[in-house]
Structure formats: C-alpha cells, structure tokens
C-alpha cells in the first residue's frame, strides 16, 4: 500500500462530503489563507498523526526486501471556528466528520482498502487566538488487496 493513495482517498471523501462537513479545508503544506487572511471560518485542518507500516503475517517481511502491505494510522481533523461564537456550530461540524467516518467504514483506493478502525474521538475544544478549535481524531487500518 502507498501512503499517498491512502491519504488521497481520505482527502477525496472529505472534500466530497455534504454540509455540515465544512466546505473549506486546510491540508499539510497547503495554507488555509487562500480563502482570505485571516482565513474564512469555519474550516477544517487535517494533520496526519502517525502511520505504522507493517507486513502482514501472510506476506511477511523478508531479508530480500520488505513488502509493506498494511498501514495502521491516525489523523486529526480540527474544526476551526470563530472564537466567542459558542461551541454548537463547531460541534455540529465535528459530529458530521465523525458520522462520515463511522467505525467500520470501508474506503477503497488504488491497490487497497482501508477501514475506519474505531469511532472518531471528538476532543474538547480550546481557544486559539481568534479561533476555537475542536480536534477529531480518526484511526484507520489499510491493507493491500
């Protein structure tokens, strides 16, 4: 499995999702300021937290060369809303992300498929300058097919 294929599949799903999933997104190495400075809110910011790449027992790693065919990873989708506007709107967006990426959801991509490993975890919101951030942590497991 290729990490780029996994991430692009997740990205495509998030971008195609209807409201109340946020319409504006910030990705690693892509500035959210393309929507204005400061960026229009609400928007969602994706951070890849970890990706543990492994060989499965059926297709083990060998001295001749590792065949990576499994990736267990997690990422954060932070809802960035206006500070002082209450938490209801931000939580609506967070709930929509959690509903979209429900536990067990299968997403196919070139060369494999991933499954959302557990129910996304909506963490407590916190202030960040003029923003209010609500992180949603999503865990997945991907395998080569």
């Amino acid at each position, binding site marked *: 499995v290729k990490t780029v294929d996994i991430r692009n599949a997740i990205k495509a799903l998030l971008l195609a999702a209807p409201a109340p999933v946020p319409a504006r997104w910030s990705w690693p190495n892509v500035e959210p300021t393309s929507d204005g400075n400061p960026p229009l809110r609400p928007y969602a910011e994706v*951070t890849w*937290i970890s990706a*543990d790449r492994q060989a499965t027992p059926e297709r083990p790693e060998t001295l001749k060369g590792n065949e990576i065919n499994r990736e267990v990873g997690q990422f*954060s989708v932070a809802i960035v809303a206006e500070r002082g506007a209450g938490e209801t709107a931000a939580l609506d967006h967070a709930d929509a992300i959690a509903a979209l990426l429900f536990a067990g959801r299968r997403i196919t991509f070139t060369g494999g498929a991933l499954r959302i490993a557990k129910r996304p975890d909506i963490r407590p919101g*916190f202030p*960040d300058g003029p923003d209010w951030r609500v992180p949603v*942590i999503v865990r997945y497991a991907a395998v080569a097919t």
Partner: protein
Amino acid sequence: MTTYTAATLPEWAAKIEAILDAVTAQATAEMLADIKVTPGINRGGGRQHGTVPRDLGALARSLQSTLYGSTSLNQEGVGSHVLVAGAMKAGDTARFSWGGAVAPYAAAVHYGARGVPGTFWIDVAAAKWPGYVAHAVDRAKAALR
C-alpha cells in the same frame, strides 16, 4: 517447564494474577517513559512530533498521574507516572493528563495552533500501546520459562 494440577490450582491462579498485574504495570510504565520531553515550544529547538516540547518545563511538569482501583494515588510532575504505573494492577484505571492551570496551553501545543503543527504525544503513544503490551507479555513469558 512447570506443571500445574488441580491440586495446585490456587497457586496457578495466583501466578496468573501476578502475571496480568505485571503486564499491566510494565506496559503502562514503558509507554509513559517513552514519551520524551524535548526543547522547543517557542525557543531553543523545534517541535518534535510525538514528544512533549518544553521551554521552562511547565508543560512537562503539569503531568498529573492518577490511579483509580486497587490503590488510589495522585501524583504530579514529570516523573509522576512512575509510582502510578508501578502500583497498577490488572483491571485498574489510570489517568495521565497534561495541562491544567500550570500549562493551560497544553491542548494548543498537543493539537497544534496558530499555524504551528501539534506534536500529538498522547495519540502517538496510544497508537503504540499494542506494542508495549506485546513486549510486556513477552517478558512475562520469558520469566515463566
């Protein structure tokens, strides 16, 4: 190889309980010990993914370790996890948290804010949990031989 019979069942049960306790305590202790503190919230270094960044140490010192279960224990400080993890028994619940009044910026540093990526030390450590348990089980198995 030790052989157990019905007559030695209480002895066998006590040994299994001790093994479960050891696996719980060791896996927890290793996970917390592996969370490194590295220089650089705002100065003297860069933020390293999976670590607790420090300038003056308030965030690292804000660790609160609490054990609910066979023993009730509450400790604060960088090394507060040592006593709590060491006192854990199988089935106990322990809570480890950073932040509070000592470091109210903990969430911003962990999840990222103001354009600075988070270091996600809690989620990175949690993702490695199965590995810590497997290692603790291996050590318990070795002790049994």
